[in-house]
């Protein structure tokens, strides 16, 4: 009833417009700046002046930036896969097994989210150094898995809670072991949830600046976020046009992944929210 009133429609349209402005204006501004010639970066016009693709072509033909892009893809895919795998096993354990300390460990998982990542940096740095992992992708992969684990585990636990125990019991009666039950019965039913965690892990590692800058200092292994910041945001000068162009290029992989998998992402996140 309420949805059909004129007042609601006006409210809805205005709200949509305002939210749209907040969401899309920065993106449009980024594209606008990327398309301006370098000497017009600070000239205020919005797509209605001189535009050029030189900045974007420059980024695409920049081998260093492409190396950063490749490195980011490797790290993000690997960490997202590893985080999903570990989260799935942890969540299955919390959901389907009963053992002493289970709730305490679950609480500890959630508590670990309460600490800002920057505080953990020094401890993680020292650990990586002790294990001789500084400078290798493994230092990043392990860190990203650690940060994705709490959200991943809790999200997937909600998912697994929704899978009937009788199904698992039936499989056991048929002679299936735990690993077989997990990989052949439970995980296939949780694909949307696992994909949502994979996307979450991918985006987390794709956007990370602090850990990527600290743990890997070799330029040939550097990922995109620190690479762009170090290249274009300098002590005294800032190349906004190149920075914006590079940001557009950087956002393409994440956008493609999200567009193709958004159906799973939304299903995965909302699953278990309502008890039926």
């Amino acid at each position, binding site marked *: 009833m309420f949805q059909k009133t004129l007042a609601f429609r006006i409210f809805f349209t205005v709200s949509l417009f305002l939210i749209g402005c907040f969401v899309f204006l920065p993106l449009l501004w980024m594209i606008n700046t990327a398309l301006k010639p370098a000497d017009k970066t600070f000239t205020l016009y919005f797509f209605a002046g001189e535009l050029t693709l030189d900045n974007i072509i420059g980024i695409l033909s920049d081998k260093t930036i492409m190396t950063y892009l490749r490195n980011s893809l490797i790290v993000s895919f690997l960490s997202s*896969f590893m985080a999903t795998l570990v989260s799935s096993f942890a969540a299955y354990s919390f959901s389907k097994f009963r053992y002493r300390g289970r709730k305490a460990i679950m609480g500890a998982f959630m508590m670990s989210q309460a600490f800002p990542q920057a505080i953990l940096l020094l401890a993680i740095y020292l650990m990586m150094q002790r294990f001789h992992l*500084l400078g290798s992708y493994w230092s990043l992969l392990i860190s990203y898995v650690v940060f994705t684990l709490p959200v991943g585990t809790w999200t997937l636990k909600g998912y697994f809670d929704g899978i009937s125990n009788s199904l698992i019991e039936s499989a056991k009666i048929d002679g299936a072991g735990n690993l077989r039950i997990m990989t*052949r019965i439970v995980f296939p039913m949780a694909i949307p949830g696992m994909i949502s965690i994979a996307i979450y892990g991918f985006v987390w590692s794709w956007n990370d600046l602090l850990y990527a800058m600290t743990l890997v200092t070799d330029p040939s292994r550097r990922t995109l976020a620190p690479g762009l910041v170090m*290249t274009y945001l*300098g002590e005294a*000068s800032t190349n*906004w046009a190149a920075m914006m162009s590079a940001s557009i290029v950087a956002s393409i992989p994440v956008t493609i992944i999200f567009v193709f998998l958004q159906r799973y992402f939304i299903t995965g996140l909302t699953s278990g929210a309502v008890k039926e």
Partner: protein
Amino acid sequence: MRKLLSIALVMILSLSLFAGGANESTVADGEGTSIVWAGWSGEEEATRDIFQRMRTTYEEMSGNTVNWVGWTWADTAQQLLIRLQGGEQLDIAQADIGIFNTVAQTGTLADLNEVFGEEWLKENFAEATLAVGQIDGKQLGLPWSMASITMVYNPEILSRAGWDTVPTTIEEFEACMADIAALGEGIIPYGVSTKDDTAAGDLMPWLWTFGTSLFNEDGTVNLGPEAVDTINWYKDMLAKGYIQMDIGRGDARQLFAQGKMAFYDDAVVAKGQAVSAGVDPAEVVNVCSAMPRPVLNEGDESQSTMWGHMLVIFDSSKHKDTAADFAKFLISDEVALEYFEQNGMPPVTNSAANTEEVLNDPYLKGFLDATATAKLDETARMTNASEIKTIVVEELQRTLLGQTTAEECVENMRARLSSAI
């Protein structure tokens, strides 16, 4: 599911091959020594090539290896501390005046009097230049590039406002700002910082200009009656629209590069923003020139703040001699002058600083003139510099926003600074 998992596993195993790899090389290559040099300029677009050239030229000359480790300028202090705490190899680093004290307070820097020898340092540097790198009688920083943060102006805007020469006194400066405001082109006459740490940095030389300072030489709070005059002058400029709230150094640089600002305070690196905005490096001086800060009364000394980059060598380094050899190479005339030519970084050794090339550079001249009387930022040697600056900026902002009077501002600042030191 099984197929999906198998494909994923194969992919991951393939990618894992890339994920491994050696740590940063810290071992000596061949017969030479391998040192680690850290900083930020070797990462930046404008200086990356010349830093690479510095390293390779030195490596070819000496047979040693220089491994560069870089971060962003803003993160360098934090990253140096993390690396030091981790005990990673670190031999020599680039440090600007702003972070020098933070790094020095860790007690990890080598006394360069011992590394280079006091005599050698005195032979090659002016005493005032060396003093910038001294803490508690130790020479912890080797000057590399130095000038000052002074006022920068746009000659074209001044010319349009009818000013062919720069204002030299505050009275003239106010008249000039009035003429610029009268142009009606939406130009902000003066982009003095009114937010973040840079607002405190900009206030200090004006306090000195009016005849006072934040602290006395013994470290107690000064803020004499002239501080009230300074704050009232800021308020007056704001009321007349000569300055604006919510302007930081970054904002001022951008607005200046757009031609929307006539004056602001900056270091010699101001050139970089102008060049990034499309100005021909040779033409920068036409739109971005340094000038002496106007004085209160004719004959007063113009005030500016010391700015610069130093080289520091770490006490924990096992290759101090090689690091020192590399530092000498970096400040050598040939390398320093090339750095100056390419990036405008003023050399500091007696021999390089006195070459015709440096002395007659029209862009650098204003900065070098101002450097003659430049002072260190009053918080440069304080361990809680950030807290001190925050107090100054908060009280200044409250007054500019009309929440307190200039007298209350100075009283509050005095009380809070006294508690903080």
